């Protein structure tokens, strides 16, 4: 024993944990209820806007004539996703992190004030989101819909959380960092990075902004963020929680420490590269698609490392599966984690993705993860934590078991029906007629076919919610039977021995890092150098890796001692974690923002919007049309045949066609057909009839009606500010005065109104529907840019060490075919 050590008693701050647990339970209910309503709207279009209530109550309850605009699917779906991700899982993470970090650091959370600001700030953000999203204030990017003032609040509160957490780490009375803390560190750093970059915007008003990235760049950044919201918000913190609460509940040691090391570092490094798998077969440059697909496949093993460490920890404790509901939920959750992290790489294979993407298969995949992994991990944690936080016993084992079985049945019904729906629709959309010249089925026929499955999904979701409500009742009764506890603990406080401090030299001039850095640089040279030079880099890389393996084999004691020491140094550990997660984004995003610009485009380049079309586009975004309609004809025969123009062989969506779109609107799900070439297909009167009553023009459609667009007036006055903001982020609008802008918009609106008048329909030119029609008529309009593509130089003439995008190795000089 060290003579400088002394004993002290600390009191943990479990009040904050209790707050977060209760918030999570309440928001979870709200978020899932909104999800259930949104699912119902897909099966019964009448439930949009609640107008149907008038009919079923025989007029006793009055709903405004147009229905309630903020209760339509396009606005509720973002509310659902944001609520369950950031409110339900978010608060659950904070509860788990605050509880376990104090115990793993043997010290109280650094600042009660910061904890309070964190808690109340986060709840205020949620309330703000729940108000703004249904009102149609949105940035139009999935899971990043919140408007810019709320974005700033999120970033600030996240910093408060991080500050509080790292301060606690700094004050810890436990020299080494346990694996759960590694995952928390990676979470806090990475979410901050992703969130800030993907939310960079130019405001046009307090409620509206344009993302600074546009078109393909915006798509890439969006899915770098979107995919890693799944990775670093729904996965890594939950893995950390698993590493703390599972061995606690099972009373067994974690299966393998070295597996923790390998799967942690490989997971955080590889995950970040996989974002482009959300954009496979689109006009995203091929090299990014290759990286997205291949890194996703490499992600399979690291993900399963987490599953193994979870499930195999239960070796010797499997008997508890029969008696302890906590273990039951954990086992099911980890199994769902394993299943979805196998399904993820599978769906990232371009050929599989061609079928699955834009269909309900994706929705099934996500919900296996969220309902199974997140929802059940949360339930297991609540059942374990709440009796301890209130010093009592769980009110009812039977109710917990009932929750488990009802919830499990709900997930299986949900996931199985949407698998079937996705595969059915994907196959039908890809089926050609007997001569192989045309799509065999109309889009609406494929929708009709999956309607029973969509209804089964509603039942599955409802069952899950019933199970959740049983849990709420059980937990409320448990809380009532107890009193908040105060947990104190005696710990030794000792001065940190100087020998355990790691210098930056020790961190970076270490064998693991030297081999990693060398190997990584050679990998980059292999990606980006022209043919021949890249071969050299590949061989060099292989040599470095073999040499590294050999060094490890003979000197693994040095490597593990280095890592052990790193674990006693939180700052160097966090810096290395940041480097690991930053690399993937840097390598993918920087070349893309540099190369895919208007001045380097040969071929199709988007025609600029007119002022009226721009405001119509903003309305399209605000109504959340992108939740059901893509604007991207993939480079696949069935896509081009269905959505392209007849006789134009390369009529897939080209990269330049959406270059000025802030935000991009390629979409991720086709509940309705693609709209990339909508402009030429339908005319103004058709859109009027369709928006009034989608079933009048498309029998069988499940699209909500949009009657309020015929009443509300277009906000022309804000156009000069919107256009000024667009100019500042590089959209080449001509210089126009505010009056010119408004006059142009009004003149175009009068033109459309007149066309409709000639057809016998009177729609005032100042109505929102006119602006939306102007936008829809513009979709798919482009010009030929950049003149002829220059003759490619033979590969041999290119300087061997001049880097270029990998695609140039197949198409020299033309990176935008």
């Amino acid at each position, binding site marked *: 024993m060290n003579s400088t050590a002394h004993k002290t008693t600390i009191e943990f701050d479990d009040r904050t944990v209790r707050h977060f647990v209760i918030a999570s339970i309440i928001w979870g209910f709200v978020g899932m209820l909104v999800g259930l309503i949104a699912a119902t709207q897909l099966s019964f279009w009448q439930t949009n806007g609640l107008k149907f209530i008038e009919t079923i109550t025989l007029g006793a309850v009055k709903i405004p004539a147009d229905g309630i605009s903020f209760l339509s699917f396009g606005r509720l779906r973002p509310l659902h996703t944001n609520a369950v991700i950031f409110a339900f899982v978010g608060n659950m993470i904070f509860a788990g992190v605050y509880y376990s970090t104090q115990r793993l650091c043997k010290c109280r959370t650094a600042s009660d004030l910061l904890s309070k600001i964190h808690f109340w700030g986060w709840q205020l953000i949620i309330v703000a989101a729940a108000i703004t999203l249904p009102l149609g204030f949105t940035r139009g990017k999935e899971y990043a819909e919140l408007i810019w003032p709320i974005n700033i609040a999120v970033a600030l509160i996240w910093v408060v959380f991080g500050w509080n957490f790292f301060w606690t780490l700094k004050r810890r009375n436990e020299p080494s960092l346990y694996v759960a803390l590694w995952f928390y560190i990676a979470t806090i750093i990475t979410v901050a990075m992703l969130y800030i970059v993907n939310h960079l915007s130019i405001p046009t008003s307090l409620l509206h902004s344009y993302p600074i990235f546009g078109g393909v760049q915006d798509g890439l950044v969006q899915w770098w963020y979107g995919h890693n919201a799944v990775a670093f918000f729904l996965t890594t913190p939950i893995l950390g929680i698993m590493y703390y609460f599972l*061995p606690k509940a099972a009373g067994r040691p974690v299966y393998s420490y070295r597996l923790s090391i390998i799967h942690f570092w490989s997971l955080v490094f590889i995950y970040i590269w996989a974002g482009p798998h959300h954009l496979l077969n689109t006009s995203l440059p091929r090299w990014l698609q290759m990286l997205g697909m291949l890194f996703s496949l490499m992600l399979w093993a690291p993900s399963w490392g987490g599953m193994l460490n979870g499930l195999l920890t239960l070796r010797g404790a499997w008997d508890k599966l029969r008696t302890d509901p906590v273990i039951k939920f954990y086992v099911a959750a980890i199994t769902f984690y394993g299943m979805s992290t196998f399904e993820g790489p599978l769906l990232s294979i371009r050929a599989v993705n061609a079928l699955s993407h834009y269909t309900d298969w994706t929705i099934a995949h996500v919900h296996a993860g969220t309902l199974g992994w997140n929802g059940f991990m949360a339930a297991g944690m609540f059942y374990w934590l709440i009796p301890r936080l209130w010093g009592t016993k769980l009110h009812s084992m039977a109710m917990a078991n009932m929750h488990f079985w009802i919830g499990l049945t709900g997930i299986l019904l949900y996931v199985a029906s949407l698998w079937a729906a996705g595969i059915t629709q994907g196959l039908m959309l890809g089926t050609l007629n007997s001569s192989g010249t045309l799509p065999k089925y109309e889009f609406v026929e494929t929708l009709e076919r999956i309607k029973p499955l969509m209804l089964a999904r509603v039942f599955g979701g409802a069952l899950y919610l019933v199970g959740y409500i049983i849990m709420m009742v059980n937990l409320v009764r448990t809380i009532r039977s107890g009193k908040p506890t105060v947990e104190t603990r005696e710990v030794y406080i000792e001065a940190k021995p100087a020998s355990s401090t790691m210098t930056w030299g020790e961190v970076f001039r270490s064998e693991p890092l030297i081999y990693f850095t060398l190997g990584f640089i050679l990998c980059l040279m292999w990606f980006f150098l022209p043919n021949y030079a890249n071969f050299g880099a590949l061989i060099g890389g292989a040599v470095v890796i073999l040499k590294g393996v050999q060094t490890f084999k003979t000197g693994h004691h040095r490597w593990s001692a280095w890592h052990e020491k790193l674990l006693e140094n939180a700052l160097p550990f966090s810096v290395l974690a940041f480097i690991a997660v930053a690399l993937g984004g840097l390598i993918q995003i920087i070349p893309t923002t540099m190369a895919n610009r208007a001045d380097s485009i040969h071929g199709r380049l988007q025609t600029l919007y007119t002022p009226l079309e721009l405001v119509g586009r903003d309305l399209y975004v605000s109504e959340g049309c992108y939740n059901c309609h893509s604007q991207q004809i993939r480079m696949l025969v069935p896509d081009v045949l269905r959505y392209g123009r007849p006789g134009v062989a390369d009529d897939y969506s080209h990269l330049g066609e959406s270059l000025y779109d802030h935000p991009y609107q390629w979409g991720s799900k086709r509940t309705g057909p693609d709209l990339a070439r909508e402009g030429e297909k339908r005319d103004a009167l058709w859109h009027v009839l369709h928006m009034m009553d989608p079933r009048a023009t498309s029998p069988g459609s499940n699209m909500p009606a949009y009657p309020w667009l015929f009443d509300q007036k277009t906000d022309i006055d804000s156009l000069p500010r919107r256009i000024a903001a667009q100019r500042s982020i590089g959209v080449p609008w001509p210089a126009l005065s505010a009056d010119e802008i408004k006059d142009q918009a009004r003149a175009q609106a009068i033109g459309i109104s007149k066309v409709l008048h000639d057809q016998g329909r009177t729609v005032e030119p100042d109505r929102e529907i006119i602006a939306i029609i102007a936008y829809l008529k513009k979709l798919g309009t482009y010009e030929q840019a950049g003149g002829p593509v220059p003759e490619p130089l033979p590969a041999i003439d290119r300087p061997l060490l001049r880097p270029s995008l990998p695609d140039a190795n197949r198409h020299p000089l033309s990176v935008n075919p």
Partner: protein
Amino acid sequence: MSDSTRSTPTPVPRPTGDEPVLRTHVFDGIQEFDQRLPNWWLMTFYFAIVWFVLYWTLYYQGGFFSDDHDRVTTELKAIQDVKNKELEKMLATLDNKVLWTWSQDPVVKNEGQAIYTRICSACHAADLSAKLGGAPLPGLPLNDQEWKYGNQPMDVFRMVSKGSPDKTQAIQMPPWEAVLSPSEIAKVSAYVMSHHSPPAAPN
């Protein structure tokens, strides 16, 4: 409490055989084994890495696997050839007279009507009046005697295939050859003409 035991630096002994090594350090009562990584797991990881290198090299350096643009345009050109041949074949057997005959054939008429209901009625109305509840729809009426683009069955056939010939009009009919095969277009044209009488046969 076991949690308050102090940590000592822990050398990591390498496990021999299948004996799991229990690390001595305890975190809040949690202990850790230091098991070897399962071989099948390692193999999965290695295979994915090797596959990365192999696939990338085959695609970029080996020129294997077709490029998306080439694949799609080649396939679509082939499909267009089949389509053109189909149309040629159809046109070789089709003229106004044949279509007038078809328009009186109940089997063809029924098939044509099914297509009409599915595709055309949205703009031209189920009764061909292009009116719904008195208000006009986007299409032109097909049950009157006014023909903007020709009154013969083959004019209708061409119109359905290619869409409005005058691309400057505000209201346009799209080319339905993107959705319907030539024989379907012929049938739906026959159905439309079934609402009209063929010209009196010349004596």
